[in-house]
Structure formats: structure tokens, C-alpha cells
């Protein structure tokens, strides 16, 4: 461990490599986290199957690319299929738990996560897969730092999608209805917003966002049926630390999480990468607890 830190101090250029990788991957975490925060804020359902949606989207892209479609063009059909998938899941499961106590929805989505990861395991096999996008690898600093073009492209795509989502939420009629429902569902209903449709749309939109994130992950990293839970945990870390309805916070946390993971993977060893994510989750939760405690003291 100390040896690795010494390497980082002695050769600062490695830091560039780690940071760059972290930021480029973190952008995709940000997409999944944004979807989670969206559903959380609007329907108050905490979707534990978030990461499995991402993996499922990735596998859909993988299947399409096997039939000769370039993975980047697979983004649109995958998003469409995931939208429909999200709608079906919403109608069958989520719509029935929305009004119940919170643990019900949590457990229902956890059950969904199990169903999805096991089905993917049976359908696509347990191997670790990746989709070849066919882009070049760039070398910076005389070949000490390497960046694949696809990671840059995916970073830009994430940014564009985030921008589109923000504009959609601000400008469109549906986006306004979503924001109104998130603020106060009852008042929104009184004002004539069809909240049921808003819920269904939000959940389906989240699934589509996850689908896009999954296709990007399939190109810049790896797919495996059981890696979904790691993405769920990451999304939870980001949203818990950033807070709901805080888009800049989500972006900063997502990029930061990507970088922290790369660093811990390098310093502590790859076997600790998962543990780092989970450890960060606990830290984020405790941080929230301390915040709450301060509020309570203020009340006293």
C-alpha cells in the first residue's frame, strides 16, 4: 500500500491517468444516479434494481452489436426498449407499492433486482463481457497516459444527455408536471396534473436513462450479470451524499466517486474497489445522520 502511494508521489503523471479514468467513468455513474434521484424525488420509490437496469441495458446493446449495429447507434433502440420495459415494470410492480410504506417498495425493487440479475445470468451467461467499439487509443505525455477515444465520446454523450434532461425538465410540459408532482403530489393533482401518468413516465424515463448508461458501460468497461448491485450502491452513494434535487451535487459526487474508486483500486488493490464503494455508502449515510443530529439539536 505504501509502495503504491510512493509511486503516485514519485510519478505525478500516474495521478493524471487515474483522475482521467475516474472522471470519464464517473460521468456514467452520474447518469444512473440522476435517474435514481428522479424516481426517488417524484415517486418516493428507492429503486434497488437501478444497477440491474443498467446491466440489462448494456446486454441489450451487446446483443444488438452482435448483429452488426455499431454500439453507439444502439443507444437509441436500447433506450426505447428500456422505456417500454420500465413502463411494464411500473404497471406490474411499482404502481402497486407507491402508496405503501417505504420498505415495501424497497423490498419489491430488491426482489426485482434478484429476478433481473438471475435472468440475465441465465440468458446471457455469467462471463464478463465487453463490447468492442473500434475506436483508437490516444497517448498523452509520451505514452505514459492512455485514453481510449470511446471514453471521451461517452463522457461527451453523458454531458449532452444531462443537458437535454435539464432542458426537458425546465421547458417541456411533462417536465414541469414532473417537477410539480415532486414538490407536492396532492397539490399537483388538484391543479389537474395526471400524477399517475407522471409516475409512469418518470419510472420509464429512468429505465431509458439506465439503458443509455448501460450501453456506455458496455463499451468503456465490462458487463456481468451480478455487477448490477455495485451500480445500485454507487447510485445510492451519490444521491445520499448529494441530496435530492441537487443536480450540481450529483455531478460533482459522481465524478468524485469515479476518481476515488480509481485511486483506491490503485492504492489498496483491485480487490478493495467494491469494498471502497460500500464503505463510502456507509460514510455517506453516517454523514447524513450527523446532519440530522444537528437539526435536532437546533430544534431542542
Amino acid at each position: 500500500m505504501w509502495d503504491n502511494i510512493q509511486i503516485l508521489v514519485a510519478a505525478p503523471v500516474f495521478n493524471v491517468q487515474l483522475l482521467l479514468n475516474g472522471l470519464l467513468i464517473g460521468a456514467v455513474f452520474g447518469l444512473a444516479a440522476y435517474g435514481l434521484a428522479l424516481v426517488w424525488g417524484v415517486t418516493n420509490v428507492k429503486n434497488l434494481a437501478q444497477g440491474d437496469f443498467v446491466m440489462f441495458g448494456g446486454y441489450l446493446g451487446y446483443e444488438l452489436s452482435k448483429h452488426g449495429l455499431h454500439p453507439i447507434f444502439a443507444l437509441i433502440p436500447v433506450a426505447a426498449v428500456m422505456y417500454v420495459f420500465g413502463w411494464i415494470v411500473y404497471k406490474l410492480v411499482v404502481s402497486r407499492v407507491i402508496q405503501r410504506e417505504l420498505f415495501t417498495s424497497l423490498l419489491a425493487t430488491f426482489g426485482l433486482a434478484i429476478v433481473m440479475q438471475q435472468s440475465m445470468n441465465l440468458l446471457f451467461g455469467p462471463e464478463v463481457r465487453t463490447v468492442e467499439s473500434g475506436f483508437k487509443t490516444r497517448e498523452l505525455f509520451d505514452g505514459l497516459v492512455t485514453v481510449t477515444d470511446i471514453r471521451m465520446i461517452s463522457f461527451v454523450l453523458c454531458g449532452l444527455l444531462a443537458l437535454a434532461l435539464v432542458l426537458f425538465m425546465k421547458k417541456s410540459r411533462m417536465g414541469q408536471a414532473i417537477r410539480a408532482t415532486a414538490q407536492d403530489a396532492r397539490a399537483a393533482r388538484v391543479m389537474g396534473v395526471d400524477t399517475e401518468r407522471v409516475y409512469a413516465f418518470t419510472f420509464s424515463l429512468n429505465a431509458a436513462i439506465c439503458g443509455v448508461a448501460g450501453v456506455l458501460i458496455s463499451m468503456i468497461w465490462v458487463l456481468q450479470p451480478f455487477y448490477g448491485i455495485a451500480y445500485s450502491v454507487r447510485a445510492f452513494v451519490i444521491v445520499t451524499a448529494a441530496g435530492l434535487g441537487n443536480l450540481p451535487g450529483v455531478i460533482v459526487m459522481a465524478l468524485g466517486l469515479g476518481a476515488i474508486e480509481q485511486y483506491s483500486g490503485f492504492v489498496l488493490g483491485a480487490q478493495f474497489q467494491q469494498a471502497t464503494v460500500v464503505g463510502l455508502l456507509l460514510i455517506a449515510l453516517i454523514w447524513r445522520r450527523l446532519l440530522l443530529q444537528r437539526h435536532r439539536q437546533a430544534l431542542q
Partner: protein
Amino acid sequence: MSRNSIILHCAILAAGIVAPLLFPGLVFQFAMLWIMILFALTWDVLGGQMGYNSLGNILFFGFGMYICAITQIGMFYNVAEYTAAFGAIKVDFTDQQYYVGLALGLVLAAVACALVAALLSWVLFGLRGPYFAIGTLGAALAAAELTGAWNYVGGGGGISMPVFPGEPGVRSLFFYSLCMAASIACYFFLRWLYGTRFGLALNAIRDDEDKAEAMGLHTNRYKMVAWSISAFFLGIVGGLFGNMTGFIEPMEVAYPTLTFGIFMVAMTLLGGKGTLWGPVIGATLFHVVKEVTWTYLLGWQYVALGLLIIVNVVYFQQGIMGWMQERWPQRFGLVVDSEGAVASRENAP
């Protein structure tokens, strides 16, 4: 205890003693049934009675397993050398060494788990509702990862446990009776506990924690003790399970968050949470159905499990006991106060 209830208890006890003698091939499965019952009972202390839904109680199962293993081996050998050799060194435990080690290991496992629960509760009970569920899930996942990276206990490679000094038939009966004893002890302890003020305090926390606190209950202490009780029994059964399987490793055996960890929740919900018998019924039904159908599902078992959880949660939340209580309230000594119900409905906002 009424007469019927005494007869029921005696019948279950008799079945528990006779079953392994009648079907010697299934002793391991019967032992697992008792373990499952204990899982569901301990989960219900928090999930049902106190309203804190933990997804990470399996943490104590695995922790107890490792504490027990380390004690059993560490009393007579160097644990690091033992695990590093992956069973290559010839180790012999005499009868006396084995039994003393096992007894001490189980006691230490139980106590250590209760202590860990007390420590963790300081951190995790500040979280409420879904945050608690996610936090405990995170703790269990982290424990599995960290144990897997800890070379002293063999890391991901695991530890092969000391060999039982005796016939295989005796061995399975020995562990069967220990599992049965642990479950029964747990059942009677909880039965007594739910009748005391402590049980009432747990229910008060479930119904409205802020009001309970305002009434002067030290909710944090109650929560801590309740979790420690769960952890105590889970630690014992973890140590037993490690010895029963003979080989332990972090992911599949010690911290199986996605199998046993989620089974406990599913079984309790199936039987009806917040009742004493619900977990017992749920665990029995779940385990029997699982054992009978598991092999015919050809890989789709876990999909079926997930579907069961979804259907259970979405369409049948009250569980079997809850359903029976709704159906025949008088049988359970519940009086339906229809006038009061109407009045409270009118007063409700």
C-alpha cells in the same frame, strides 16, 4: 399457556426428535430447517416487532462463523499457518480439544456478535426507514469484501474446519440437536421477551418512534439491545453452520447476502411479520417448498425466489399469520371494536 398450546408445543418437539431418526438421510435438511426458523425469528425482532427492516442481518451469521472458527483453531494452532496451508498441514484435534474448542467458540461467537451489534447500532440506528435497510445491506456487503481480503483467515480461499471426531451419522445428529436446541431456546426467549415491557417498548418504537421517545423511552438503548439479541442467536447458529458444512469462505458460506440474507426477510414476510408464529410458519413452509422444488427449477430457482418476494410484498403483505388474524380474529384473542373503528375513522384527518 393454554392446553391446546401445550399440546402443540409438545407435538412440534416430538416431531423434531423423531424426524431425524425416521429419515436419517435428511438430517442435514432438518437441521437447516431449524436454522431457517431461527433466521426468521431473529429477523422479526427488528423487522416485525420494532419496524426496523434490516437487509444485512446475515453479517452476524458470517461473523459468528469466523469467530467460532478462529477460536476452535486458534486455541491449539497458529491460525495464519493453518489457513495459509489450505489443509495441507496435518492437524489432529483430540476429542477433548474439539469439544472444548467448539463450546468455547460458540459462546465467544455469540458474545462477540452481540458486541458488534451494539457497536454497529451506534452508527446505523441513526438511520431510519429505507436508509437503515440500505445501510445494513452495505455493512453486510462490506463485511464479505473485507473478510475476503483478510489473509489471516484465509481470505477468499476460506478455512477448512476441524474434523468432527466420530461417525458421520453421529456428527449430523450432533449438529442437528444443537441447531434444534438453539432455535427452541431462541423461540422461548423471544416468547418471554415479547410479553415483557421490553416487547411493548419495541412495538412502541415501531408504531411511532418520536412519540415513544417523547414518552420517555430511551429508544436508542432498546434498539441496541434488540439488535444484540438477534445477533447473539445468529452468532451461535453461524458457528454451528460453519462446523456443519466443514468449510467456510466469505462469499457463499459466511455472508450469503443474496441467499440466506434475503431468505430471512422473505420467510418472515411470508409467515407474517410482527407475530411470534409467523416466522416459524413462514420458515417451515419456505424451506420445505424450496427443498422439494429447488432441483426441478433448473437454474431458475433464484428467479422464482425474486418473484416470490415481489408477489409476497406487493399482493400478500400481511403474510399467512396476518391473513389468519384478519380472517378469524376471535381465535387470536383479538376483539374487533367496530364502534371504535368507526369513531377513529371519523376523527382521522
